[in-house]
């Protein structure tokens, strides 16, 4: 939940792009960032106190087996050799094998990432569907009671530790009320009903026409997604309010009002229409910020996603898996930044 950093990252790559004035330079700077990220992670990974061999063999390990696995993992090589091999493999599209699963990292990521993406997307949807109207209401009622209430309510979500909300939510909505399903993504008995297409269960079940599976998945999803969505709602509502206020001070709004447009028409047809692009960039950046919340919420809900995978990899000292995760997050973050910049430049009339 890095509330303010999202906007601060906006425009960075655009700046490079403008300065460089060509795509190649931009690509170069993105690659350099990713490379730096990998170096940083590799150094961190090297000093991780966790012993991946013991992670594999357990605390009652046999010394000969220890030696064998140690060599298998290439831990006898000096650090720069390990890094060199890693980079070489990356260039051929091989992210290596993960210790914590014994499988290729790329395969793992393809398996866990859709789970997180599904969660993050629905969260974002909730945050936008609720947050944007709230922001508009707040702007319209600026400094009056609705504004204050909305501020407190959204800030509460932003201030609450997500893991705590998750735990409390499980007790209330699952244990006591029985409204939602427990942890995991799907009830067991729906497991094999839907063929794997995208890894997004909601989508896959719709494609297969299995409505029961769809409802079950939604039942599992609603609580963690609402909590994550609630957490990012404050940011979206706040930015919406701020954008709206800026619009409503503009002359054309006054003109429209004088011309006798109804207040609602003014708000939605004129003011809101003009902030859509700005909002879109904010939404893109919020999406990346959801990764943080996912790390915690996935732990609480046993959500078999990316956050859990990364925490597991870190605690077990699983270098390949950690590096794969870092690379992916880096790409997503940089990608979202580029996207929001592009959106801004393409759609915003003022940058033209």
């Amino acid at each position: 939940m890095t509330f303010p950093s999202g906007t601060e990252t906006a425009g960075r790559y655009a700046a490079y792009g403008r300065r460089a004035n060509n795509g190649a330079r931009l690509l170069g700077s993105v690659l350099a960032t990713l490379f730096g990220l990998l170096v940083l992670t590799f150094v961190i990974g090297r000093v991780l106190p966790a012993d991946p061999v013991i992670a594999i063999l357990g605390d009652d390990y046999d010394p000969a087996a220890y030696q064998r696995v140690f060599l298998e993992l290439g831990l006898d090589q000096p650090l720069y050799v390990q890094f060199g091999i890693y980079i070489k493999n990356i260039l051929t599209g091989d992210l290596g094998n993960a210790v914590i699963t014994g499988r290729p990292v790329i395969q793992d990521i393809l398996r866990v990432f859709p789970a997180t993406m599904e969660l993050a997307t629905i969260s974002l949807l909730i945050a936008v569907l609720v947050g944007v109207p709230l922001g508009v209401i707040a702007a319209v009622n600026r400094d009056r009671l609705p504004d204050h209430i909305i501020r407190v309510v959204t800030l509460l979500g932003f201030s609450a530790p997500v893991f705590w909300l998750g735990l409390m939510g499980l007790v209330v909505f699952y244990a006591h009320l029985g409204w939602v399903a427990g942890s995991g993504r799907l009830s067991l008995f729906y497991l094999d009903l839907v063929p794997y297409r995208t890894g997004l269960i909601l989508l896959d079940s719709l494609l297969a026409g299995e409505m029961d599976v769809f409802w079950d998945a939604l039942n599992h999803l609603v609580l963690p997604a609402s909590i994550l969505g609630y957490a990012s709602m404050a940011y979206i509502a706040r930015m919406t309010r701020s954008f709206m206020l800026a619009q409503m001070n503009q002359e054309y709004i006054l003109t429209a009002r004088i011309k006798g447009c109804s207040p609602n028409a003014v708000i939605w047809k004129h003011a809101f229409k003009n902030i859509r692009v700005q909002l879109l960039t904010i939404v893109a950046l919020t999406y990346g910020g959801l990764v943080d919340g996912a790390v915690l919420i996935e732990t609480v809900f046993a959500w078999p996603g990316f956050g859990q995978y990364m925490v597991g990899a870190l605690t077990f000292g699983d270098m390949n898996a950690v590096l794969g995760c870092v690379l992916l997050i880096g790409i997503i973050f940089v990608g979202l930044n580029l996207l929001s910049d592009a959106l801004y430049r393409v759609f915003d009339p003022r940058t033209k």
Partner: protein
Amino acid sequence: MFKSNTIAACLLVFAVGAAPDRALAETPSDQLVIGMTLANVLQMDPHDTGSYEKSHISTQMYDRLVEMDPENESILRPLLAESWEFEENGDLVMQLRQDAVFHSGNKVTAEDVVYSLHRPLLGAMNASSTFRDVGFTPENVEELITAEGDYTVRIRRPSDMNLVIFMYSALAQTAGSIVDKQLVLENEVDGDFGNAFLKNNDGGSGPFSLNRWNPNELIVLDRFDDHWLGGSEMSRIFIMHIPEAQAQRLQLERGDIDMAYTLSPSDYASLDANPDIDVQKVIGDGYYHIAMSTDHEILGDPKVRLALRYLVPYDGLQESVMTYFSEPWHQPISRGKVGAFDEDLPVSYDVDKAKELLAEAGYADGMELEILTLSQPPFIDIATAFQESASAAGIDVKVTQGAGSVVYGQMRQREFDLIVGRNLGGKYGDPHSNVASSMYNPDNTEASSLQNYAWRCSFYDEELNAMIEAAAAEQDESKRAEMYHEIQNHYEELGPPFVMIGQRIDPFAVRTNVKGVIRHPSWTTRWDLAVKE
């Protein structure tokens, strides 16, 4: 207009939230659903890993030659081995049943058995330590374990040690799992004995075959219909990764799962009162303990180690966090075994006594120590309670928690002061199991091929080693019992490197409509025997 939009959005959220719970209230009658944490299940090769959870999975996928009766561990029962006898020279000759087949359809023959028993040592796999314990080495194992015809296996003694111990310590454990030789060889890569293949695949003949394994998510096992036992009543077993103990309990209470394996103390207490749920407490042979490095400059003094023994609030722990995790027993050989004492070691929380001992050792002014612990209950609870109680004697204890790969990684390098552990032998019913883990240390160098708990604590005594070897070779039971008494007395004089908290219990909770599952003390609980009412 914007208001109606908001309302619509809110309605959507709540409508979804309030949608009827479509999960089935009860699990189907021919499927078993188990909740546990799968974080320590990193691969499926039965010979290469030793976590508690993994051991249970291997038990279902792989047959062993024999098993121990879960209610009386000294009784060996036949599985793939129909019968066995000891010849006069001590050789063990086993007759295999002839109707067993692997999941691949291949027949289970003596050749498979011999290959499976060579594999841990030749492939340098984790299970090899139990083979080494008895004296098998990669050099001698091919000579000593051989096939005689299709269904007879001969095992010769590599040392004076009685091979019954080997049956308990290796053959009845997952270390003695029988793998499909032909299938494994077909999938061998660079002489890895099929390790890469079995990490992710099934090569067994057990009552269940591996259908699906999503690491840290779930494992699905399917009934093997051609199993020699005729097939389990359960057509499927789901093992779900539920890391939060409280979530596991909720799902158990609601009937979403049938069994829960990793709960916290308060969960067991409350489930015990629930008529729909049965909490099984079977005493295991290991111990919860605090291990002390004798290599440490202060802890090297036996008086200091003894002093720490008086700084554990035994009763308070037993009545609160340890109720479902341990039974009071503090002697090094588990209660009831051959050679075990009748009386418990007199231990108590006695700060004055501890202070006196510390003063005698020259540490009246206190000291600073670090205790490493896993971050899960009850380990972290023991560490926290000890931290508080030891402060009364001026000992400043710093608690550092972490995952097993962190905590035991440091222990492996013998760089630690104190560690909360759960071990000290007893995966089988013989007293050798206890002493082999807690006090036998034939080679105290860094290069030792046996890195048991005694080695990790740098605890070494030549005389004790000799006594242990002699006792393992002794055939006469009453003489043997006497020898183990002497071993324990001598060990006590040396100042043990462990403060015993209590004898281990691995509880689990099961819904009462599930019958037939009896928790096995050595992590080989058979789920195929489950029947649902």
